[in-house]
């Protein structure tokens, strides 16, 4: 049946124009007002995602930062100067993240913690390239951010795991499973943006490096934050792969796992989901499939160090929640920053950048109890990486095999040479 519009009501042309207007407003957002003018604290700005499907990225980053900053301030700060955090919600819109970064910089922050994932991280990166603000990217995992010399400049550092490290570690681990179970037919399902594309390509590259006869017979690329994965799940069902790789994460991974489980996919194929072993995901999946292979994002049981367990306990006590991968990265950013501040004794960005380069600190999250800000490409190395298989109850992942950083360094260097980056 056809229902007639009110006379004088909106035309289709008007509606389409208004839809475009709504989209434009949604993208640019309404202006936000900065606050937090202090006396003489060390001011750190942090744009991140505090709402939406991946709000836990920003929420857990913020919580970890605040917890570690409070400790620093309680110990007297930098000669009595506390750190003041100014944290704003970008809603996952890269343009908004860049705008917030500019706003914070014009408000005179001393340092920027970019709490955006790769989608917004590169937008913030371009802002600080121009302004020369000392910036620590705490959630950007796309390797090119620090590996590509064109993306590198003196004031930007990455305090996050990165795709190439995870991919080498994952490739080594997966190759062993491939050999043991003869898994030759692979498919991939990863989010359709820089991180998903790059990380998947790197994983496949190292999987083939160790097991050259592996074939990728199909791939499917859901959009970031896509609401429904049925079409991707049925694509995987049709491909009948022996193994599937995915770097979906957070709410996207949860929705995919729920839908894939209904189609019985986890009993048909071996799944390698690099981002599964994070409490954000593990706690939300109602029936966690047993035997999914995953890299450690954040687990209180890995690395098996008392300091790591204590970090998880303190975080849980204060926020009634579990830390995430983003939480340990954010905490590490505070640890490195405060170490550099103490070393320099002030907030001069050039001096702080020089202090950060090559800085090694004790860390609850280090493979051997330490992490390093590698000088050559200003990126974090030495953090604990391991792969294991999921179980439905605590500690959620068992049989974790620790990655060998010497092997990662060697293959990372070859990968850079192949790209013309080294």
């Amino acid at each position, binding site marked *: 049946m*056809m*229902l007639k*519009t009110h006379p004088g009501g909106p035309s289709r042309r008007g509606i389409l124009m*208004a*839809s475009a207007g709504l989209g434009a407003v949604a993208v640019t957002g309404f202006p936000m007002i900065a606050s937090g003018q202090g006396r003489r604290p060390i001011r750190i700005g942090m744009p991140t995602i505090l709402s939406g499907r991946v*709000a836990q990225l920003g929420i857990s980053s913020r919580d970890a930062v605040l917890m570690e900053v409070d400790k620093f301030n309680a110990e007297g700060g930098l000669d009595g100067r506390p750190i003041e955090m100014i944290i704003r919600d970008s809603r996952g819109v890269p343009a908004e993240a860049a705008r917030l970064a500019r706003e914070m910089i014009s408000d005179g922050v001393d340092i920027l913690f970019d709490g955006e994932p790769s989608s917004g991280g590169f937008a913030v990166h371009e802002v600080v390239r121009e302004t020369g603000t000392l910036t620590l990217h705490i959630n950007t995992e796309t390797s090119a951010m620090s590996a590509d010399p064109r993306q590198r400049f003196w004031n930007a550092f990455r305090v996050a795991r990165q795709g190439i490290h995870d991919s080498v570690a994952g490739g080594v681990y997966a190759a062993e499973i491939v050999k043991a179970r003869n898994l030759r037919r692979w498919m991939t399902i990863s989010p359709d943006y820089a991180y998903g594309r790059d990380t998947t390509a790197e994983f496949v590259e190292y999987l083939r490096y160790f097991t050259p006869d592996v074939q990728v017979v*199909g791939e499917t690329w859901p959009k970031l934050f896509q609401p429904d994965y049925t079409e991707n799940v049925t*694509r995987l069902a049709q491909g009948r792969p022996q193994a599937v790789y995915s770097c979906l994460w957070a709410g996207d991974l*949860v929705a995919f796992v729920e839908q894939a489980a209904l189609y019985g996919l986890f*009993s048909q194929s071996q799944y390698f989901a690099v981002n599964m072993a994070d409490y954000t995901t593990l706690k939300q999946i109602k029936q966690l499939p047993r035997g999914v292979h995953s890299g450690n994002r954040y687990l209180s049981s890995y690395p098996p160090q008392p300091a790591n367990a204590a970090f998880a306990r303190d975080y849980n006590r204060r926020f009634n929640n579990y830390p995430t991968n983003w939480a340990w990265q954010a905490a590490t950013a505070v640890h490195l920053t405060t170490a550099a501040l103490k070393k320099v004794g002030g907030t001069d960005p050039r001096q702080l950048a020089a202090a950060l380069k090559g800085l090694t600190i004790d860390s609850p999250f280090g493979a051997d109890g330490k992490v390093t800000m590698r000088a050559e490409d200003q990126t974090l190395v030495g953090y604990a990486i391991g792969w294991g298989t999921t179980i439905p109850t605590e500690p959620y992942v068992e049989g974790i095999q620790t990655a060998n950083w010497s092997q990662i360094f060697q293959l990372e260097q070859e990968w850079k040479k192949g790209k013309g980056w080294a």
Partner: protein
Amino acid sequence: MDLGELVSCVGSLSCLVTQVSAGLTIGLLLFLVASGLTLIFGVLGLVNFAHGTLYMLGAYFALSAYAATGSFLVSTLAGTLGVATFGLLIERTLFRRIYGADVLMQLLVCYALILIMDDVVKIIWGGDFLKMDMPDTFRRPPFIIGGGIVPLFYLVLFGVTLAVALLLALCMGRTRFGRTVRAAAVNSTMVASLGVNTNMVFAAVFAIGAALAGLAGALSAPIRSVVPGAGVSILIESFIVTVIGGMGSIGGALVAALLIGLTRSFGSIGFPLFTEGLMFLMMAVVLLLKPSGLAGKHPA
């Protein structure tokens, strides 16, 4: 582009069963949202840009009801009736003031409502994504029909959404209420002069449209992430459906929604890198060939 894979799929019963069942289910879910949107537009002249918010609220109401009762039936009813009640409330207090108004005024009011409700949801349920559970019965291994895979929960979704679509068609086409609604859409002044309380009719239409969106949200909650702002992407797809189907046409919305569902399903096989683009391509082709939409009767 993988045309060989697509041809192979179309020639395989197992692939056809899997893709058609998935495409129809997703299409029918989309129809629930789009039919409410087109119903409200057709009768009230209101372009409800906040329709996605009603979908989101349906998911949250269902999630809370399921957590409290563990009953899928109760959670579905809570999502549907809760959003219908909310729809009635905002229609009486807000939307009735902008019927037939300039589309920019409607956009402003709707966008304000979207922002307010997103914040209300964050205050009540938090900003992080949530996941609704489902009864263990629905988690049974999927049916294998002709070699194709059909999950039990998708059959439930298919059955419920198809029943609601038929009920809506019956209600609008064969009942006195449906005739009154259609008459009010053509000339509400004339209908009022016959002694019909058109304000009540408008309120009822808005509530039905809201209930349909709420039902879609409630049914989707067990398989999708429940999150503030979840209505935005579904709203865009719903607008595509209403434009392809013909604005104001419920039958057109049904055909368009099923077409979108099947296009996405088979597009993922043959055009894995262009599945999203296929929807917009289809919309562009329909607008070029028939600017008023598949079932539209009025020129743009």
